[in-house]
């Protein structure tokens, strides 16, 4: 627990508002991956309907 608190404390020191901007950039990448998943599922289901038709 003590060690964990030390890690937390160290992390807090390097995590300022600027780091939140870095996190937002990572979040944009996550968002594109998730959006691609959604589009793929949509296309797959319509395509499966076309092929089954």
């Amino acid at each position, binding site marked *: 627990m003590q060690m*964990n608190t030390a890690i937390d404390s160290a992390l807090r020191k390097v995590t300022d508002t600027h780091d939140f901007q870095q996190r*937002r950039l990572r*979040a944009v990448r996550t968002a594109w991956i998730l959006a691609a*998943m959604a589009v793929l599922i949509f296309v797959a289901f319509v395509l499966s309907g076309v092929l089954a038709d």
Partner: protein
Amino acid sequence: MSSKNMHDHAVDAHEDHHDHKPAGFLDRWLFTTNHKDIGTLYLVFSLTMFLIGGLMAMVIRAELFMPGLQLVEPDFFNQMTTMHALVMVFGAVMPAWVGFANWMIPMMIGAPDMALPRMNNWSFWILPFAFVMLLSTLFMESGGPAAGWTLYPPLSLQGGQSFAFVVFSVHMMGISSIMGSINVISTILNMRAPGMTLLRMPLFVWTWLITAFLLIAVMPVLAGAVTMLLTDHFFGTSFFNAAGGGDPIMFQHIFWFFGHPEVYIMILPAFGVVSEIIPTFSRKPLFGYAAMVYATASIAFLSFIVWAHHMFTVGMPLTGELFFMYATMLIAVPTGVKVFNWVSTMWHGSMTFEPPMLFAIGFVVLFTIGGMSGLMLAIASVDLQYHDTYFVVAHFHYVLVPGSVFALMAGTYYWLPKWTGRMYSERWAKIHFWLSAVSVNVLFFPQHYLGLAGMPRRIPDYSVQFADFNMISSMGGFVFGLSQLIFVGVIVHCVYKSRQAADGRVWEGAKGLEWTLSSPPPYHSFNTPPAINSSTVAHADEYSH
């Protein structure tokens, strides 16, 4: 106010007066990128939709008050049942949970805002247009959709030109939901404060993370299904048209592949809210935190492999029926874990019964009744009797009304003082609870008997032997509907009239980062990451790796 903490030590270091809050009304609400403002927009929108959908329910119950046709034409009655469901599912419950997610997730994980604030604005402002489009079909020559919210072909394809508006509005709702979910996942995975490990996250955040994955997986499936309906209706394709070589049963499979996870999309965040409230008012940590997380994930996984229990009567191989029956029954295991853990949390706790706790306990008891009737419906051989009767209506209303809706009310009463900085009238909130809890049972419990006696759903008229239970049900419905006006009154009074200021930590037993902020919280929640330790987070010591 018994549990208001008079010795509040809320950390208010983040409150400054340079919060860049837009001054103008349009700038503040139309162009907002702030998670709290967008959360408020979602909640106001969903409350409006709740009242519109509720009015439709009143029309339905008024028509069913007595046998015979009383008030509306049968076709309009069918439009009411269809629209009531679409409005309540997509306009009231789902946006309400997104509103909660917007308000609470950044505050619970120690982030300043959602990860993608502009998309957040867009995902909300699509919704009013989608629902204006959907509701406008009621005023069109061909009327609104009348085939039930499941939009089964061939019935749904027999509608008029307004069907295109319905499909487009469903597309828009889906896009909104997907964008909201992407935002939630991106926020939770990337914006947590240092030290806020996954297994330290509040249960509400966990349930929303899993819900968001469900949404991304199934909303495109619904979009695909309604797109195929659209082309069948207007462009001469035959995906579901038997005359052209298509298969209407395929639509049912695709729809319920979306539809069953959709049920869990509406209930998993409710599990999260209840898992926040019960420990607070039991003054004990949540029993079996990790088990709750794994149970939520298990329910989400199982929700993908049970869809055909909605369509046992279409005829399928015996092995198929057995698979879907047993898979459905399996869901009772993780759900039972949850109910057990909530009860165990209350066990030997120093319980008090403020309005959020009353609604949470109401949720646990009444949702379990809905779960039990769900188990009855899961039995394939018995479902042949129950299918398309009022027993099904009673079942899913028990899950959704004293389930999802009670949890929404519990969450509202729990966090409203945090959101507004003012305390609401607990007396009126308790009156709201007791009226709702009694009337919701008067409304829905008799419907079990109606279904067992053979009354079919989605009909405006019925045989006289069903008259008594329908009359009782309708009276319960009117009281339940009217008692929701108290809910609106309590909120409006709290926002505009209440003079009783709320502390940062509104409830003495509450734990979590949101309670370390002032009430109301600063415009940007956490500009610097908060400390994550056992005094600020409920499970910091248990899962420190």
